């Protein structure tokens, strides 16, 4: 049966969020906040998310312009500076070959973003396609596809990454594909659940009744409405992928030396931890800061784009 006073209930008993107030009383409102501006306003009200976003953007900036910003050449070895403690000229100190750690971290940012980012991007693209079609077609196809993805999901991700990489050999391209394979099932599940929710909505039925093609219904009617959760999922996957890429680097299956990979730096610095802890600490802290910042940002994105819902 119908509930004629949904807005009334919102008005009367719900927590009066900004949206609720809008819902009950301003259909005729003149000022029209655009969706993105609304997101931005909500973001400003969440300091943690804002800090996360700012830090993330800072690292993004380093990733793009790192080589020009870095104070020294990341490969330049200086025997005098071996395991030098942090000084004003070398704020993060130097490693066992006398290379400036700050420069190596700055230049290494790009690696992390490129590998994690493109891995996530590929996962999002393929996962979205799988989720869309599988959810929309439904039935046996959906069942088979989802069970296959469940198989992938059932392996611990680091283990699966190790197995795959040790089979195909470590290279940047392989790393990207491994990240993608690991994250496709998760993205596909999120998209699929959105499709299941949306495909029986009246506006989708209206499109079917109009005789729209399947791809029109999927990409023009359904996908745009699945974007906010997809974006949140993508940012979460990205933060995990940073960690994954760093872990693989640490295990020696990531980018090969002398690339300034953060994980790799940590691995090599282990031997000197007792005498020069900064060689290990600074890259480790950088990873932590970036991962936490990205997490804060994706949490913020979730609250900003999916207020109320989407909390799992």
């Amino acid at each position, binding site marked *: 049966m119908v509930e*004629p006073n949904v807005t009334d209930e919102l008005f009367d008993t719900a927590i009066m969020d*900004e949206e609720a107030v809008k819902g009950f009383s301003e259909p005729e409102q003149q000022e029209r906040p655009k969706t993105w501006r609304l997101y931005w306003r909500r973001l400003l009200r969440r300091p943690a998310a804002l800090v996360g976003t700012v830090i993330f953007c800072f690292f993004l900036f380093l990733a793009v312009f790192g080589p020009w910003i870095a104070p020294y050449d990341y490969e330049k070895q200086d025997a005098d500076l071996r395991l030098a403690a942090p000084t004003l000229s070398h704020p993060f100190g130097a490693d066992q070959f006398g290379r400036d750690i700050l420069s190596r971290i700055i230049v290494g940012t790009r690696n992390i973003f490129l590998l994690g980012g493109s891995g996530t991007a590929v996962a999002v693209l393929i996962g979205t396609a799988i989720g869309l079609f599988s959810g929309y077609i439904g039935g046996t196809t959906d069942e088979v596809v989802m069970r296959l993805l469940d198989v992938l999901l059932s392996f611990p991700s680091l283990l699966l990454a190790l197995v795959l990489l040790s089979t195909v050999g470590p290279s940047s391209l392989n790393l990207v594909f491994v990240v993608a394979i690991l994250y496709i099932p998760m993205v596909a599940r999120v998209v699929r659940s959105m499709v299941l929710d949306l495909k029986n909505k009246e506006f989708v039925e*209206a499109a*079917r009744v109009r*005789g729209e093609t399947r791809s029109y219904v999927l990409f023009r009617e359904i996908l745009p*409405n699945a974007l906010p959760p997809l974006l949140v999922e993508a940012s979460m996957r990205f933060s995990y992928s940073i960690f994954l890429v760093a872990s693989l680097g640490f295990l020696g299956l990531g980018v090969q030396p002398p690339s300034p990979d953060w994980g790799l730096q940590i691995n090599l610095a282990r031997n000197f931890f007792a005498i020069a802890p900064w060689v290990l600490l600074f890259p480790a802290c950088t990873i932590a800061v970036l991962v936490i910042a990205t997490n804060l940002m994706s949490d913020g994105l979730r609250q900003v784009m999916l207020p109320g819902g989407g909390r799992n």
Partner: protein
Amino acid sequence: MTVPAASRPVFEVEGLSVDYVTELGDLHAVRNVSLAIHQHESFGLVGESGSGKSTLAMGAIRYLASNGRVADGSVRLNGVELLGLSPKELRALWGAKIGVVYQSPLSALNPSIPIGRQLAEVARQHLGMDSAAARGRVQEMLTKVAMPDPDAVMKRYPHQLSGGMLQRCVIAMALMTNPALLIMDEPTTALDVTTQAVVLDLVAELKREFDSAILYITHDLGVITKICDRVGVMYAGEFMEQAQLKELFKRPLHPYTLDLLGCVPHFDPTPQKRSLVTIPGSIPRVDQLPAGCIFAPRCSFVEAACTKARPPLAAVDKGHLSACRRWQAVPPPAEYLRAATEAVRGVQTACDTSDVLVRTSDVQVHFKAPKGTVRAVDGVDLDVCEGQTLGVVGESGSGKTTVARAIIGLTPRTGGSITLKGESLPRTTGRRPRSTLRQIQMVFQNPDASLNPTRSVGDAIMRPLTLLGGLDRRRAKDRALELLQSVSLPVSYFDRLPHELSGGEKQRVAIARAFAAEPGIILCDEPISSLDVSVQGSLMNLLMKLQVEQKTSYLFISHDLSAVQHLSDVIAVVYLGHVMEVGDATKVLTPPFHPYTEALLSAVPLADPDVKQKPIRLAGSVPSAMNVPSGCRFHPRCPRNLGDVCREQEPPWREGDGDHRIFCHIPLDELERLQAETLVLEAEEGA
């Protein structure tokens, strides 16, 4: 126990103001309202969405959301001031002295505790009874709310009971302590009409039996007439008018009440129809109230002085309060209706076979379920004539929506045939050519889901124009703007997104989108039932206007008999996937009726206290479509059951005047004789 009329009211609210603290600042949701309810009296709180009626009730008993705050005023229950009580004292009071019944009985009860234990908890907590005494009390209460077999019900879990039974349990729980005040917040809105009638009867009876004062909140003017002694009309957080029920309906003294009464279609089984009253504009935001009378911007009796100062709610007659400074200028309803509405096209009679646009013959839609077959639609024959409206009325589960979905091809039929202009329609949309798809359009029930949230209004209307109408983008845009105007929306809405529109506006866009394809028929699936009465009225006017202009046919599906009788030329009454009665609207609404139609007519709450409806109540609830009863599918609930013949044999179609047909074992003249008293309209007495 009798109480002298002059005695002190049980529940008094004086100058109550409730605020919500939000990021936009404090919202004064309810401002300076007063009311008083005596013992055994029921006070009806009517208003549209956002009028603050629930806030008033919950604020008065201080049961508000965390950001709600009583700003001012005084509330007394049996002389005890509620606003000064500590949270602990309040908790003792709620439940013991105040009972609340909410709209959704299923969410009011804990799904994991049996009914008996849940109810006994109240008796233990508030009456201090031990387990055995509490059980006895629960049993007694369930018997009082006319629950069949209370012992069995006490062992069941909430999901095992029907909506009507659950609501009775909730009422029993609320009345357990014989509270001084019973607040009922839309308790029948989620129920079917026939169930609603039973619950309303029960409340009316309990009102006499228990000592409670009842505060009854509803948006439905019809329900008010069944329950309430006194009525308060709320608008944007203030009372516009308070009066005794009959007085309010006979002689409303506030323009808003007058308009509200005119928005509801009058039950009228004659072919002449008049448009409904429309109230321009919408309810103002509570933080953007006009300076003078808050209704002034929408009022038809407004004069300059009205916009200067806000008129207080003042007594204008004995027991009659109005917040209109021009109350003396407010005309009697009949006079106002004649002036404010116009004659619209009369009801047509069913057409010849040659003019049939859509015909369904023995259509079946059966779904396979794990435990058998759901016979959602089970042999439906209907004709929709060109330019006419076929109203399909039935309770939830009657299969009325599924019939429409089978016609448009969203749910494939499993048997029978559907033809459009004599040509058979393929079962699904995918197999239908565009020229056929264009002919059939649909307006959906839920305005919030029927438009894509990411596409602008203009996009939504242009798409069928370019896809089905073959227009280029520029011509489509021109046409879309025309369509916006024809559904009375400003052209500036073209670029808006759906979330910037109200429910009624969204539904207007959906109607414009349906008309964009220039269809032969539009299937309207409960298009107005989720909207406020005033919005319903204006949408019904719009649908009628567009039908005359475009010569479109409608299949109008609704559970609301008032709306169906207002719009339809031909009415079909469906029950459990089968048509029970079909014929010209005037024939279906006058005797002889099918016993089911009769029950619907006597159950529908008409917003007119003078109509006398014979109380015919159906037993039980609609059976599952997986388990359709033998013989006549209505026989287990039929008050005119003949016994074996009804149980064993499928009834014949009895042909009446014109195309009137009734699916019943009882001959028509017999039915007509039995049903003369079912519905007595006051107008006939006067004439």
